[in-house]
Structures are given as structure tokens and as C-alpha cells.
């Protein structure tokens, strides 16, 4: 019924003696939103880079819709996987529209000659690209700022623009690296809706995030990465209830520890917060 979009199997990434990602398997199916969480330094972004060809995995393979991806970023995007970055990497001195048009690069093919000769085909392709880009800008609500420089946008809009740029490459899978980092609760909720809207377009989403409430609201499935290894994978409830996940985030109490009581309080607070989030009330 559901087709697998992304299948990563046994992805391992070593930097010298350090194993950043150890034999991680992950699948994403069509129309699914999958979350990837883990404490700082767990190897989430490294895993992302392995998926998108920025790193060449030491072992393992990544396939998209059944075909193995070559470890070159532009070929990965060409195949249909587009990503955003943890620290925003827009083309700061290009306009909003131009940023999205760059995202169209793989879906257009006008080369230097057609640019120089400016035949009817070139004009048609440029107009079509622009139309598509404007649709995307309207989708994320930045159409009125098409001629602003990307660097002059406020932070939240830069994040949105990065998503629009990725969407411009018409991906089947969108990889978001901490899309709500640095956002306030309202912006986070808006991003949540945006991700749902993207899913409704038929695009699968794989998202790294630290905001637990965001991730458990959003994702159909969550995978937890700890010290480069996948610890648990499952629905929000499964992951939230897993003791190892809590331990990975907060550490395990050892026998007779003086902070034992304090730790239990924290755990209680955590559970409470999780309940609060599932009820969906705001702070």
C-alpha cells in the first residue's frame, strides 16, 4: 500500500577513529513524517549529511524509491531528496525569488547557449520557473517579499524561505534539519502547519528537531539516535514511554545517588510536560 521513499541501511560514518554514525537503518514511506531526535552530538546531522551526499558514508547504502543514491549532493537533489540546513544557508545576497529559482536548477536544463541566444524556449522556461517559484512563495507566504534580499528577512522567514527553496526542486522527500531552532512558540506552530501542508502535497518529510512537543505532535514515527546508534524507533507514544530514551537524555541514576530525588522530580516534570503537549494547551 505504502511505497518506501527512503531506505537507508547500515549507514556508518567514521571520522578517523571516531564513529559518528553506527549502522543506522531508517525507512521513510510515502506521505509519512518521520522524526529523528537525539541528544546533542548524537550524530543526527551527520546522518543527514550521509543521506544527502555531503558525506560519503563509510559503510551502508542509501536508496531513494528503490535506486541507490550516488554520494553527490547535486545528484541526490536531482533524484528527489531536498534538504534544509541547521544553520540557515540561504544565498544571502540574492533576492527571495532568486533563491527559490536556484532551487529549480535541477528541474530546468537551459544551459549557457540558450541563455546567450535567448530563444523562445529560454523565455518560456524562465517564465515557467518563475511562475512555479511564485506559487511556492505564495505557499509559504512570502510572495510579497519576492524582491527583498534573503539576508534582510527576519529569522523565521529565512527558515521558511529555505524550505521553499528545497521544495522548488520538486522533491519526493524533504529533509528538515532543526526547522524550528530559535523560533518562538507561534512560529513553531506555524512551521508545524507548514510541514503538514507539505505532507498533504504528497511529499514525505524527515525532520531533525530538539523541540519534543513539536516532534511528537508532528511525526507519524520517531527514531531516536544516541551516540551514533539508533536506540528506538516507533510512534510518539512508544518513544516517549521508552526508559532508555529518557536515560539517554537525562542520564541514568546510579545507586544511592544524592540527586536521586531531584531526578525523579525532573522525570515527573517531563511526563507532565508531555501530557501538557498532548493536550495541546500552550504556555
Amino acid at each position, binding site marked *: 500500500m505504502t511505497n518506501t521513499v527512503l531506505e537507508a541501511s547500515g549507514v556508518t560514518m567514521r571520522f578517523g577513529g571516531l564513529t559518528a554514525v553506527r549502522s543506522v537503518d531508517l525507512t521513510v514511506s510515502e506521505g509519512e513524517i518521520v522524526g529523528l531526535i537525539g541528544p546533542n552530538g548524537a550524530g543526527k546531522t551527520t546522518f543527514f549529511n550521509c543521506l544527502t551526499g555531503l558525506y560519503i558514508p563509510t559503510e551502508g547504502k542509501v536508496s531513494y524509491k528503490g535506486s541507490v543514491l550516488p554520494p553527490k549532493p*547535486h545528484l541526490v537533489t536531482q533524484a528527489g531528496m531536498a534538504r534544509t*540546513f541547521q544553520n540557515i544557508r540561504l544565498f544571502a545576497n*540574492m533576492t527571495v525569488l532568486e533563491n527559490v529559482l*536556484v532551487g529549480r*536548477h535541477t528541474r530546468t536544463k537551459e544551459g549557457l547557449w540558450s541563455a*546567450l541566444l535567448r530563444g523562445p524556449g529560454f523565455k518560456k522556461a524562465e517564465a515557467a520557473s518563475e511562475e512555479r517559484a511564485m506559487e511556492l512563495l505564495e505557499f509559504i507566504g512570502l510572495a510579497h517579499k519576492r524582491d527583498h534580499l534573503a539576508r534582510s528577512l527576519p529569522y523565521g522567514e529565512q527558515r521558511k524561505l529555505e524550505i521553499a527553496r528545497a521544495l522548488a526542486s520538486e522533491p519526493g522527500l524533504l529533509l528538515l534539519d532543526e526547522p524550528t531552532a530559535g523560533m518562538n512558540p507561534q512560529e513553531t506552530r506555524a512551521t508545524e502547519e507548514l510541514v503538514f501542508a507539505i505532507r498533504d502535497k504528497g511529499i514525505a518529510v524527515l525532520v531533525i528537531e530538539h523541540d519534543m512537543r513539536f516532534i511528537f505532535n508532528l511525526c507519524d514515527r520517531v527514531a531516536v539516535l544516541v551516540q551514533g546508534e539508533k536506540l528506538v524507533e516507533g510512534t510518539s507514544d512508544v518513544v516517549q514511554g521508552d526508559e532508555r530514551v529518557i536515560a539517554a537524555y537525562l542520564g541514568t541514576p546510579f545507586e544511592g545517588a544524592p540527586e536521586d530525588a531531584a531526578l525523579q522530580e525532573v522525570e515527573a516534570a517531563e511526563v507532565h510536560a508531555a501530557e501538557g503537549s498532548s493536550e495541546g494547551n500552550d504556555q
Partner: protein
Amino acid sequence: MTDTTKTTGAPQGAQGTPVIPLPAGAARILIAVGAVATMASTMLAWTWTSEFPGDLTVTGYPAGLQLLTLTGGILTLLYALTLWNVRGLRWLNPARANGPVFLMALAAFAVTWYTVLAITIELGGLANLEPGGYVAAVASLLPVLGALALPRPGDTWKSYFAKADDIPAAHEVPAWAERIIITLCLALGLIVFTYGIGTPDDEYGETFSGFMLLVLFATWAVFAAGLTDRFSSLNARHKGFATSMAFLAAAVFPFTQSEDHNANIGVNILIFATVALGLNIVVGLTGLLDLGYVAFLGVGAYAAALVSGSEYSRFSGTQLPFWGAVLVGMAASLIFGVLIGAPTLRLRGDYLAIVTLGFGEIFRIAVNNLDGSSGPDITNGPNGIANIPDLEILGFNLGEPHVIAGFTLGRFANYFLLMLVFTAIVVLVFTRAADSRIGRSWVAIREDETAATAMGINGFRVKLVAFALGAALAGLAGTVSAHVSYSVVPTPYQFAGAAPPNSAFLLAAVVLGGMGTVSGPLLGASLLYLIPEKLSFLKNYELLAFGIALILLMRFRPEGIIANRRRQLEFHETGQLDIPEQQSLPEGTIGATKATKAGA
């Protein structure tokens, strides 16, 4: 004594404490009187001997540098009159700001005092000044003092030099009137540029120095008054028209020159500027620092020389028609570009710069050694390929003077017109490539290569296209340059030297003029060619002066003379959102070149 911060553009001009306390009315009168006196002083004799260039000994009419002082005086008077809101002159100073008046007074002051000091120092003492010289010095000082007595535009000294605030929008005028304005501005640009090229080659470049001083401050004044902004927005509205008029103005240039020597300077400027524009694709758009770019000019020149039929050429039997030579030159440069680019473009930033620097030198040294004794005999070694015959296009021998419509076009004038066609082609290639899918991918690579590849851009391939295109354009210019200069030798194709073209000067022309624009490198190249040409007395200090000038420019205007709108924002964080008036981003149009050539 609290200074108010901003000018309000109110009818009384700026509010602020004047540097010199004087009633506003008196200050204005002082400026006007000083300007008139400056103009009058140019009718007097400034010195008693004709040893000083330009013969300033005549009473009754101005000569040499006095003409420049006269121009400065007239401009100062016109700007002074804008303070009285004289009808018909308001457009000169739309905000009625005091800054432009001060700068214009400074222009007249600078050129006059420069002249007076030059007379005193060169001829050895104040005794060489006639009373007229003293009159001129005092008269030109008055408007500066008067302008300092006007309310200061802002809180600091700098505010006199800054662009006026609250410049009102220009009146709506019909499109045909706008086109006439563009035409007039370009004509003015042509006149100023022609005058600059035509300044006599004095021993110490006095006339040219005076000219540069006047033009520098006058342009600054016009910029501060907001007129350059208005002109560029006019240009943006009539882009095609402005560009064609600019080329027309350039095409008129050889007809204004009776001496072929000036046309020679002109054609060399064009060659240099065209190569700089090609480099701008690589450096300005794609962000690849190429320090060996002049080698491509050399490849083109050598390729054209080898097939030119010169008796010193290895293939002296073959004489290709010109279009064939052009294709050979471009193809050779292109291949050389790909050969160099393919291994080096995998490097980033500084590493690429070092490797290209190396390859640039390798070309020169290789050409130097391919003389038959230390290598195969191809390039004739240090002697180069001499006696390159003149081109003949459609039966039209470019080496002979031709009379067209009563004007005699000499050899260099012919080549100037030919080169102009190539410059136009390169401008067209640049603008079209920049505004396309491939151009956007170049800029994306410049902005963030990692993000660009993650967006599906094949970084290596796109960079190689930029590198090869830049190389081919330089090769194109090289084919003409071989014929213009009769011979090709290895020496000019080095990394750094005292005179263009060399890689350092090319890069400087791009950076100084404004990266990523069309008009910037053209203007930068004109300046960098003309200044060493006219100030040849600097000799050993030329590079020192050049270095100081570059440092100053990078300190005060890092985006270059003609700023790409993007760069402008990058270097001057205004906190303002960038909302253009037009739909598309105007990269400085070619039209702006001429106007600012007027400013250069």
C-alpha cells in the same frame, strides 16, 4: 551647542551648527562672490613664464589648468545659486542640501590650489606667481569658507561628504524627455572622458592631475546631491536605449580625436576593459579568485599572432581571415581554460588563487622558453612574434587611415571601432549569462557552495563553464590586441607590473570598479589604464600610489565605485529592507559607465 542630527530638506536648507559662524545670507553671498571671482581670476596671468604646462601667462583668456578652474568656478556658482532656489537650477541640488555646494566649492578650490602650488614648487618659489595666481588662490578659497559657514548637514564633519537626506523624487517627465536626458548625460560623459584622454602629456601630468581632482570632487558633489541615483534609475527604465546610446557615444569617440595617439589609448582601454569584464564573470559572479587571468589574454594574442601570417610566426605561411583568427584565439583560450580549470576548480578560496597564480606564471615562462633552444620553437621566445600584419575585413584595411564623412580615422581609430564591437558582444554575453539559470547558479556558488550543491547544482561543472567562458572572452580580446600592438611578447602577461594589462591590474579593475556589474569593470579599467598612462612621471612609485589608492578605496567604498546593489547592502548594513522600484535587479547598466566616466 547641541547639533540637530538630520537635515530636513526644509526651504531654509539644513539645520546645524556651521563650522564658521556667519549669517546664512552672508555665507551664500560669499560663495557666489568667490565663485565669480574664481572665474574672473582665470582671465589673469598666473605665472610669468611659459615653462609651466599650458601657458598660464596670458591675460585675457584662460588656458590649460585655468580652464579647469573656470569650469570649477562655474559649477560652484551654479550650485550656490541653488541655495537661492533659482528657477531652472533646482534639479542640480534637489534636496537643496549644503553638502553638494561645499563639495563643488572644494572641487574648484582643489584644482586651483593644486595649480598654484604646482607652479610654486616646480618653478622654485612664490616669486613665480603673478598677482593673478594669488587672486585665484584667495578667490577659490572664499566659496569653501562660505560653504563651511552654511549650516552643517549633520553632526560630524563627514556629513558634508555624505549623500543628502530626503532627496525628493524626481518630477515625472515624459519618456522622450527622459531619453533626451540620458543622451545629454552620455554626451557630457563623452566630453569629459575625451578631455581626460586628450590632456597633454605634461612632464609631471599637471593637467591630468588637475582634471582628476576636479572630476573627483565634482562627481562627489553630484553624487551627494542625489543626481547619480536619479541617473541610474533613468537608466534602469530605459535600459536598452541607455546601453545603445552609451555605445554610440563610445563609437563617436574616435571621430573627436584628431590625433591617432589618443585613439590608441582608447583601444587599449577597450581591450583592457573587455578582459576585465570577462574576469568579472569568474571573480564577480562566480566568486573564484583567479590570479592568472591575463594568461588567457596571452593565449588569445599568441594564437592570433601565429595564424596572422607574420613572417616571425612558426606558421608564417598560414594567414587565416580575421574571423578564423578570432575563432582560433577563442578556442585556444577556451581549451587552455578548461585544462587549467579542470584540475584546479576542485579547490576552494585561497588554494584556487594560489594555483591560478602559478598557472598564469607557467604560461608566461613557457612562452618565454618555447624558442627552439630550450624547447620546441613555437613562440619565438622572448623576442615574440613581431610584424603582425594589419587586419583586413571585407576589403577594409584597418592599418590605413580612412576618411569617413569628412573625419579621418587613423589606424588606431579603426581598431577602436572594431574592438568596440567585441566589447559590445562581451557586454551582451555577460548580461545575458548573468540573468539566467546558469548565472544564478554562479551567484549561488559564490554565496554558499555547499548550499548550492545541496540545491542540485553541479558545482564543478558550473564553475568550469564560468572559467571557460571567461577564458574565451579574454582570448577574444587577445586576438585584437595582437594586431593592435603589431607584436606579441611574453612580458606583459605577468602577474603584477607597473602598467596594465597584468593579472593584478585586471583584478584591481574589477574590484575597484565594482564586482558583478557591467559598468564597474569598464570604468575601473579605464581609470587603471589612464592614470598610469598620464602620470608616467611617478615611474617607480606607481605601484606604491596604486596600492595606497586601493587601500583607501577598500576602506571607504569596499563595494567599488559602481556598486552592485547586493554588494552595497552587504557592506553598508542599513537595516533597511531592500525594496527595488523595478521588478528586476538592475545590475549597473552600461549607460551608467559613461556617466561615471564623466565622473572618473
